[in-house]
């Protein structure tokens, strides 16, 4: 029977739904229920949220530190683990310098854990080599919106969905990836809010609206420029807003002057007429809200895609008001927080520049320590440097780059090249298998802390269970490791102390305390002494950069078009049953059953031409790799395009994806590459990548 009900926040996605954990008399997690009056989720959860107990209660949890000797892992004591790691780190730093070690923290971990990780890197290891997985999700958002608006976060709030006239969903599949927000959009649409969906695939939302712009992969900028062309030509823009709040409009007008809807029909595959209707609807709506996702960011043109969405919103004055804005849908539960905490090589907490002398002094004074000055490496930079032998030790938690990073083979060989790889995890992952030392991590239900959701809401996570076995929270083991290395810099007594130190150094979190966060069901930053109740809408009076900037951008072709050898385009997508690398959600027998291990969506017409039947085994080959899986015939993908979810370690799509990068953020082009698909012999089950590569 349920003896205790602990309020906390769902650990899966950036929506940050409120859930209660039901605990029995023996202190075990029985099940969950939604928080009835949570400001966002209002008594709802998606299937991932409902399946939380399976992720935590699994028998496969790692419960003590493990040391790898050859291919086998042996249990060791925490003391031995810490001594080994500390010795190795110290000797590597002594020999090769601090720039050869680094940390990859986690968008799944709490703000407190992330704050501790970057402080450990900067003040103990003395390196700015600190990053997390946002690199492969939304770094173009941060880079793009920063240039256009001055801040890289969602401008508005989830509740605005019910307070707008038109919702434009661009390259995002919210009912699968941010289900509860997706549900809000369905509800608003059912109640009369106009809905426009721009996506190469027929997503669930696309099925619910008559306005679906099924554009070709990678043609976002061409489409948006044509929309701007129409809006400017027809004088549908917001003159007052443009003259009082922005700069650069004339150049933009000139830039798109010749980009007529007709001129982009063939690049985008969208009819000129539909472009015109969309331009009118968006610009003439009293309030219109843009949501976008990885269909915008995961391209070589990622940063520019984001910039052009900002151009669109700015031109119509759809920003800084209720029911408007440019709203990135960020993947993991705390990806916003991990960025806010400065788990990025170029910024301290609160986006204070590592290169700026003033910030360097601020942090070195506050911490009472010398800190790293040299610029740091991104996660991709670290793996590259490891490959070439210039990087020797990596501490990594809550991430599985071997499955989620582009170009899996490259990641694997570079991680193998390290002298020391430490991975803190809940369960064994593909990356953890390569570690020298594995540390048992505490799950979200086993610790106190905060997560920051996609609408900048900082919410309290409350400990409901004792850590499994010898598991420790991330900041706790970082603290122990710092002590072992002779540093007292991480000596907090509890999570609240970590939070308070962070808040005192992070302007946007200035006026937050645990008590206030709990009392208000979360606080949205900026929460400063001037705005102690938090801020639900950004940029109401001015932009952090004063005037917002229109920036001219051009269409860029995808890096790898199709050819005779690789005649189909592959894009990646997510299924709402699974999350990230699947290491948590795949522990649920219910969600695991929903989809076979790996699949490829293919249009029936392409399938027929290739003699492929529903559920038939197929092989997929690109210039970089080869995988086998099963075909799923579906009209949701257009002819010429195939789509593959990336959750499956048996058939990881990143064996195939392109490593060409966005020049600004190094974001790889995960959304498009050329492949060849062939049927396998009937009755021959697809081999897993592990079998193909000759491992167990």
């Amino acid at each position, binding site marked *: 029977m349920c003896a205790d009900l602990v309020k906390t926040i769902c650990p899966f996605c950036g929506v940050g739904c409120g859930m209660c954990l039901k605990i029995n008399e023996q202190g075990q997690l029985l099940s969950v229920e939604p928080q009835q009056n949570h400001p966002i989720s209002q008594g*709802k959860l998606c299937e991932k949220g*409902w399946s939380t107990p399976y992720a935590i209660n699994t*028998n496969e949890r790692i419960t003590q530190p493990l040391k790898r000797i050859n291919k086998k892992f042996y249990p060791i004591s925490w003391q031995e683990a810490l001594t080994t790691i500390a010795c190795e780190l110290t000797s590597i730093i002594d020999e090769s310098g601090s720039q050869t070690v680094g940390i990859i923290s986690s968008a799944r971990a709490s703000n407190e854990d992330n704050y501790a990780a970057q402080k450990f890197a900067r003040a103990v290891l003395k390196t700015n080599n600190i990053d997390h997985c946002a690199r492969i999700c939304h770094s173009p958002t941060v880079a793009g919106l920063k240039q256009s608006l001055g801040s890289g976060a969602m401008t508005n709030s989830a509740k605005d969905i019910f307070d707008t006239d038109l919702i434009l969903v661009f390259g995002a599949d919210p009912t699968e990836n941010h289900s509860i927000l997706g549900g809000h959009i*369905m509800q608003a649409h059912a109640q009369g809010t106009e809905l426009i969906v721009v996506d190469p695939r027929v997503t*669930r939302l696309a099925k619910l609206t008559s306005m679906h712009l099924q554009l070709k992969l990678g043609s976002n900028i061409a489409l948006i420029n044509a929309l701007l062309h129409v809006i400017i030509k027809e004088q549908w823009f917001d003159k007052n807003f443009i003259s009082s709040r922005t700069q650069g409009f004339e150049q933009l007008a000139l830039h798109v002057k010749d980009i007529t809807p007709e001129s982009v029909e063939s690049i985008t595959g969208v009819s000129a007429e539909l472009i015109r209707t969309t331009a009118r609807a968006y610009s003439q709506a009293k309030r219109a809200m843009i949501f976008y996702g990885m269909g915008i960011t995961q391209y070589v043109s990622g940063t520019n895609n984001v910039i052009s969405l900002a151009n669109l919103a700015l031109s119509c004055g759809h920003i800084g008001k209720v029911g408007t804005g440019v709203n990135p849908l960020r993947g993991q539960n705390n990806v916003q927080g991990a960025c806010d905490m400065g788990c990025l090589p170029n910024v301290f907490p609160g986006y204070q520049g590592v290169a700026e002398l003033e910030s360097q002094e601020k942090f070195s004074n506050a911490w009472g320590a010398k800190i790293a000055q040299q610029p740091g490496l991104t996660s991709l930079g670290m793996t590259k440097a490891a490959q070439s032998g210039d990087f020797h030790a990596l501490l990594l938690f809550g991430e599985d780059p071997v499955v989620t990073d582009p170009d899996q083979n490259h990641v694997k060989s570079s991680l193998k090249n390290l002298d020391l790889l430490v991975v803190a995890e809940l369960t064994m992952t593909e990356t953890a298998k390569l570690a020298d030392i594995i540390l048992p991590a505490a799950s979200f239900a086993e610790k106190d802390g905060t997560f920051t959701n996609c609408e900048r809401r900082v919410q309290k996570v409350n400990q409901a269970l004792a850590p499994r076995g010898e598991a420790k929270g991330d900041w706790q083991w970082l603290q122990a490791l710092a002590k072992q290395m002779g540093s007292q810099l991480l000596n907090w007594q509890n999570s609240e102390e970590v939070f308070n130190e962070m808040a005192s150094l992070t302007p946007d979190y200035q006026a937050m305390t645990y008590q206030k966060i709990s009392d208000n069901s979360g606080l949205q930053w900026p929460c400063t002494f001037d705005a102690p109740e938090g801020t639900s809408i950004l940029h109401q009076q001015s932009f952090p950069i004063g005037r917002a900037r229109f920036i001219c951008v051009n269409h860029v072709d995808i890096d790898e078009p199709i050819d005779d050898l690789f005649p189909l385009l592959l894009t990646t997508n997510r299924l709402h049953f699974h999350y990230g690398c699947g290491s948590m959600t795949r522990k649920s027998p*219910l969600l695991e059953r*929903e989809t076979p291990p790996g699949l490829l969506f293919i249009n029936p017409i392409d399938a027929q031409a290739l003699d492929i039947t529903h559920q038939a085994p197929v092989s997929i080959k690109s210039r970089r790799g080869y995988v086998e899986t099963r075909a799923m015939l579906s009209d949701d993908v257009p002819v010429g395009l195939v789509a593959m979810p990336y959750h499956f370690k048996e058939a990881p799509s990143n064996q195939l994806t392109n490593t060409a990068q966005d020049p600004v953020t190094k974001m790889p082009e995960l959304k498009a590459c050329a492949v060849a698909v062939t049927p396998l012999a009937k009755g021959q089950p697809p081999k897993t990548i592990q079998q193909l590569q000759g491992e167990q």
Partner: protein
Amino acid sequence: MEIYLLDNLDLLQQHLLIQHQLYQVIEDDNGQCSWQQQTKEGNAPLIAKLPQSSAKDFFFAEHENLLIFNGEYFQETLPKPAPFVLFGALSCDLTAISYQDKFFKDDPYYQARRQHCLLVGLDCVRPCQQGFCPTVDAGPGVREQSADIILHPLENQQWLVITTSDKGSEAVKGLALSVAHWHLLTQRDLVLHQCEQDFPDNTYITQAIDKLNSGEIKDSFWQQLAVQCLGCSGCTTLCPTCSCYSTRSITVESEQKKVIKQQRFWDSCLYEGFQREASFHNPSSDAGKRVQRFWHHKFGNEFFTEFNRHGCVGCGRCEQTCPGVIGIHSVMKRINSDA
């Protein structure tokens, strides 16, 4: 049936606590209502609020081991709960328990818990937000067959205590209760009748039920509706009458021995994989079929005949929890307008 008057409910709670563990619905600061165990030391006031999770997991556990084989022999897994009382269960949830009693008639795990439970029902004298129990004959007054004891609040802070079963009579033995005049029962009827009148007009539900059973609704309607089903399992998890489950075996291997457990867990008929067979054949691979099946289970005539009532008790939980906006009220309205 006996009827008594009680001035102080605390006396009844304390009396029941002597021989039972007592659970009651508690509301926290944020308005979250849930069943919580009460002790002799502190009894929260009784509230007529529907808890987010119904009482079904008191009997039909969310996960339970049906069999444990420890390498040498099978271990007994039948639960042996201490006697307990659900104090102040509302009529819709009690009706759902009666419904599940039938469904799990021969299930030893369910029955082991059910037999140790005393049900004390509480009349609703005001409609709740999403509920429509009168439309489906499940409230607002507690039905005699669905509880052992019924509590009815009287205007002067007094309580009417009605015992409706031997178990109920047995449970109040030894408690100093004054016998009440029968006219208080009439007064109760009037209050409940008034409460029924206060519910919003729910004829669209009745009309939709008729339409649903007329065979007129096209497959395309269900398909369109099912685009909105995210397969979250929220409705089936919170619905007090849903009882889908699956089983799996879990093997825990240590150096000394291998333990195999056969575990049963709550499932959802709205998951695509619920009926899929190993060959990939699936009689309900179409989401429209799954959503249709769910509502047929709640309102189809065949089920009415089998259980002598609708499978829906009108609690309204599915409306609140469905992220796809296809809970009871939304679906019934759409059946009327679009089907």
